[in-house]
């Protein structure tokens, strides 16, 4: 009742008017607010369009580099030495993993892995990273991949990736030649940045660390491709918008021959040493093997600390490439080169003989410099001196030449400096000189040392590769080839052969000098009293060579007992500590009348060169010529077979024609 009366008193018109005006105000406010909203949207969508469009694109579009396939490495016959194989690896993005420790433990359990991968992974993680993913383990078996795939949803941030990995099918056979690739580290990055080539490695995980892999890195690597992809907010690739394929690296053919390398390894089995086999005609290296070696593949995957420590601490130093880094006294293998010096300088000639009483005496010096045969070789001329490895002849020659001349001449033969072979692991060894001795030992040069140098002892050291390279100068009558591993590169179908790298020749007054020295070296093999004769009895080819035997005694001891500096030939003291036994060296070439291959051998602590190194040379040469012959025969056989087939086909055709004629 009250309400009704109240209503009756109400001014409905006034109320309606008031409400209408308030509603109109609201409508106005709403319109204003909508205009403000619209203005702001206009600001975003029209004024700011360019900026937001760019930001939207950079949100979703990412350019991903695609790694190029690394060039393959073959031997001269197309045998593959370094290939790329597909491997499955587990990779982890730590930022996407919630409980890393737990994940790692479960992974080890699931995949039956060795616990050591966990510590390896954590070390990897602490290092500077170039990619969000860190490899956890690789070379997964199909079964492990399947097992992981089944449980993948339990492992966020963990994925299986298929990648190409470098593989060296011959394991340790070519490690010192080819080297290996390994993960790119900070030094590599700095080096690449210095070369301005780091951008080529945007997607690459490994780089050549050693040997040919390192030397020819720029040839082998190739150029990365790029794919422009659309990613979602979690960084997953949704689709590819654009793809620029990578340019694969070039393939490389090396001069080496797997078969020759294998025989070289076989010959060094169980011994420390190196063998260099060179193509006489161009300096190409048919084989270069250093024993002991090690498996290159373990470095590709990232070698464990313990395994690496084991290699480092191995007393046989497998990490050293003895062919290019081993420093050996050349011993008597230097005599042919000394002979060339004598002839060139007119200190000796081809006819003159000297009398060898079994020693050489320096005027004013009490000590006698002994020949290895204490009763001497009697009348000795140059060829004979090489044949029997007479010391007295070369003591006299060295004495007359003097250390300065020896140094200069031997430098022109390539001693004391790097050969320039196409791997970086090379030592210049040591060609002694007055200046060197003064600078390093702070002592003046003694004439007695000159005599020792004359027979390849004293301070003089060479690498087997230097020795082979210098020997090849004699063999080619003065041509100087830089030793070389690269035979050809292949870019797609385009095969480019490497030109031999030839230095200006070594000019001597008379080319006869070379043939005389080579004659002496052939006699060392062919004559009954030649130092290498025993090893080459009944060889089906004409070989030539020079043996060397260097006693392994510290220099101090050597100076106390100078008469024991050189013991060439067969007199090996057997009851000596293994490490104190003589080093055997050998240089040689064959065939003597038309040299095809030149070789140098150094074997540590085995005794005399004649008995220990020369037989190695014999077996390598035997194998090589036999193998050459078998290759030629095989080719001949192939040819005959093809001819045979062709004839047979023709005959069949004729028969058929006859038959059809008959039918008609």
């Amino acid at each position, binding site marked *: 009742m009250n309400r009704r009366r109240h209503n009756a008193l109400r001014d409905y018109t006034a109320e309606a008017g008031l409400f209408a005006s308030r509603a109109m105000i609201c409508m106005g406010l709403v319109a204003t607010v909508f205009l403000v909203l619209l203005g702001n949207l206009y600001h975003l969508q029209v004024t700011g369009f360019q900026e937001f469009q760019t*930001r939207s694109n950079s949100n979703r579009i990412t350019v991903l580099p695609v790694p190029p396939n690394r060039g393959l490495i073959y031997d001269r016959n197309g045998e593959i030495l370094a290939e790329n194989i597909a491997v499955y690896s587990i990779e982890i993005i730590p930022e996407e993993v919630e409980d890393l420790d737990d994940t790692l433990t479960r992974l080890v359990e699931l995949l039956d892995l060795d616990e050591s991968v966990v510590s390896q992974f954590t070390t990897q993680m602490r290092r500077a990273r170039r990619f969000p993913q860190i490899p956890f383990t690789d070379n997964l078996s199909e079964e492990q991949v399947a097992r992981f795939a089944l449980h993948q949803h339990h492992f966020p941030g963990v994925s299986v990736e298929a990648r190409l990995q470098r593989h060296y099918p011959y394991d340790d056979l070519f490690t010192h030649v080819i080297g290996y690739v390994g993960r790119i580290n900070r030094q590599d990055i700095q080096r690449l940045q210095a070369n301005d080539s780091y951008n080529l490695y945007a997607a690459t995980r490994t780089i050549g660390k050693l040997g040919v892999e390192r030397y020819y890195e720029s040839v082998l690597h190739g150029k990365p491709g790029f794919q422009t992809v659309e990613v979602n907010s979690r960084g997953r690739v949704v689709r590819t918008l654009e793809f620029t394929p990578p340019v694969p690296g070039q393939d490389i053919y090396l001069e080496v021959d797997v078969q020759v390398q294998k025989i070289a390894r076989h010959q060094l089995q169980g011994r420390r040493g190196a063998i260099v086999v060179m193509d006489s005609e161009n300096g190409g290296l048919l084989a270069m093997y250093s024993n002991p070696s090690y498996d290159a593949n373990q470095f590709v995957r990232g070698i464990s600390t313990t395994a690496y420590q084991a290699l480092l601490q191995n007393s046989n130093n497998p990490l050293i490439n003895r062919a290019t880094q081993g420093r050996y006294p050349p011993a008597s293998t230097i005599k042919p080169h000394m002979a060339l010096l004598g002839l060139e300088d007119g200190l000796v000639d081809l006819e003159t003989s000297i009398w060898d009483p079994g020693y050489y005496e320096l005027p004013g010096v009490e000590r006698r410099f002994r020949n290895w045969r204490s009763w001497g070789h009697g009348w000795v001329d140059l060829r004979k001196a090489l044949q029997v490895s007479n010391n007295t002849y070369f003591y006299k020659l060295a004495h007359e030449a003097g250390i300065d001349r020896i140094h200069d001449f031997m430098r022109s033969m390539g001693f004391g400096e790097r050969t320039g072979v196409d791997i970086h692991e090379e030592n210049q060894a040591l060609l002694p000189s007055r200046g060197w001795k003064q600078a390093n030992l702070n002592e003046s040069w003694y004439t007695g040392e000159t005599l020792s140098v004359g027979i390849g002892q004293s301070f003089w050291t060479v690498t087997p590769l230097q020795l082979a390279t210098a020997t090849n100068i004699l063999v080619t009558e003065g041509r100087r080839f830089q030793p070389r591993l690269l035979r050809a590169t292949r870019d797609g179908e385009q095969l480019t052969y490497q030109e031999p790298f030839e230095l200006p020749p070594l000019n001597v007054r008379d080319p006869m000098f070379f043939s005389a020295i080579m004659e002496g070296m052939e006699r060392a093999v062919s004559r009954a009293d030649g130092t290498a004769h025993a090893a080459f009895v009944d060889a089906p080819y004409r070989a030539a060579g020079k043996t060397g035997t260097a006693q392994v005694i510290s220099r101090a001891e050597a100076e106390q007992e100078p008469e024991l500096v050189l013991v060439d030939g067969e007199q090996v003291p057997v009851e000596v500590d293994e490490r104190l036994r003589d080093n055997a060296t050998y240089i040689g070439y064959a065939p003597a009348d038309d040299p095809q291959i030149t070789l140098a051998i150094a074997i540590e602590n085995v005794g005399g060169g004649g008995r220990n190194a020369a037989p190695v040379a014999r077996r390598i040469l035997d194998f090589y010529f036999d193998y050459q012959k078998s290759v030629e025969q095989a080719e001949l056989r192939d040819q005959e077979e093809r001819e045979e087939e062709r004839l047979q086909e023709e005959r069949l055709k004729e028969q058929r024609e006859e038959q059809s004629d008959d039918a008609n």
Partner: protein
Amino acid sequence: MMQTSQERGSLTLFYRFHIDLPLFLALACLSVISLAVIYSAGGQDIALVQRQSVRIGIAFTVLIVLAQISPLTYKRLAIPMFVVGVALLVAVLLFGVVGKGAQRWLDIGITRIQPSEIMKIATPMMLAWYCSQQQLPVRWTQAFGGLLLIIVPTLLIAKQPDLGTALLVFSSGVFVLFLAGMSWRLISAALVALAGFLPVAWFFLMHNYQRQRVLTFLHPESDPLGAGYHIIQSKIAIGSGGFEGKGWLQGTQSQLEFLPERHTDFIFSVFSEEFGLMGVCVLLIIYGFIVYRGLAIAIRAQQVFSKLLAGSITLTVFIYALVNIGMVSGLLPVVGVPLPLISYGGTSMVTIMAGFGILMAIATHRRLVLRD
């Protein structure tokens, strides 16, 4: 009554079923847009669209049913609904179910109910009833009483915490007071009081995450991968849509999942990215038309209660749109308010449609009112 005779001639059929055709068509338009954008934002998941279609069906059913009820009935229900609603809010605080970090639901055995949604209708109804008891304009004392009625449910909801709903409930009540002619001086005084209240709210009432939202709103770029990420990505989506948009299903920001809450609170960003400023204009025009139509219905209503309730319901929908669009375009802090009738989700849509149902009841029951 006379002014609507022409209209009624053509709309008789719909008026018989208490449906305001222009408003109904506008709502239907929004529903179609909603389904299209949800399909795109949800990663072209047809199941999502089907579920939303069912909800839209339910919501329209609720609208039609509520439109049949006389405004007088709503007036009678105002007090009981409000009392029950507040009681339920208290119950939520005491026995509520916690979900998504807030206590909003009440488990009543068969289903969960969200009492704060009821308050979106109950509060303006209560206020409209309260203000219609005396001659308009509302006086000082009455206005204070009204404010008290508003603040009780608002605080209860804010405590859950559900800032978005609290804001909507609060504004729905304040709109009634404003439309009821609350004096300008009082409005100014209230604004001053509100300004004074803000620091208090900041230090004593707000949760940490709420403060974070406000801070993020003020400096979104300071934390581009953290809390500011959503706003930045949303602005990128809207801005990169440009004038014409990237095209339906072509929005990279949404399709590639850079946008958060794509089919719910940030659906406007998806819409803007794909349909551009042109699409946005169309959408704002539809909302503007709905507000215009709602206010027109309110002005034409004869009962004070109906006028105030219709006005409040309409303006609350506008607040929804304002807060949501302002939030995703970086003008307002992020509070969980859906884009009305577009965002995926059933609860708020049913509430809004219920509001429109009441609005239509008010629009179409005038003669009955007169007879009364």
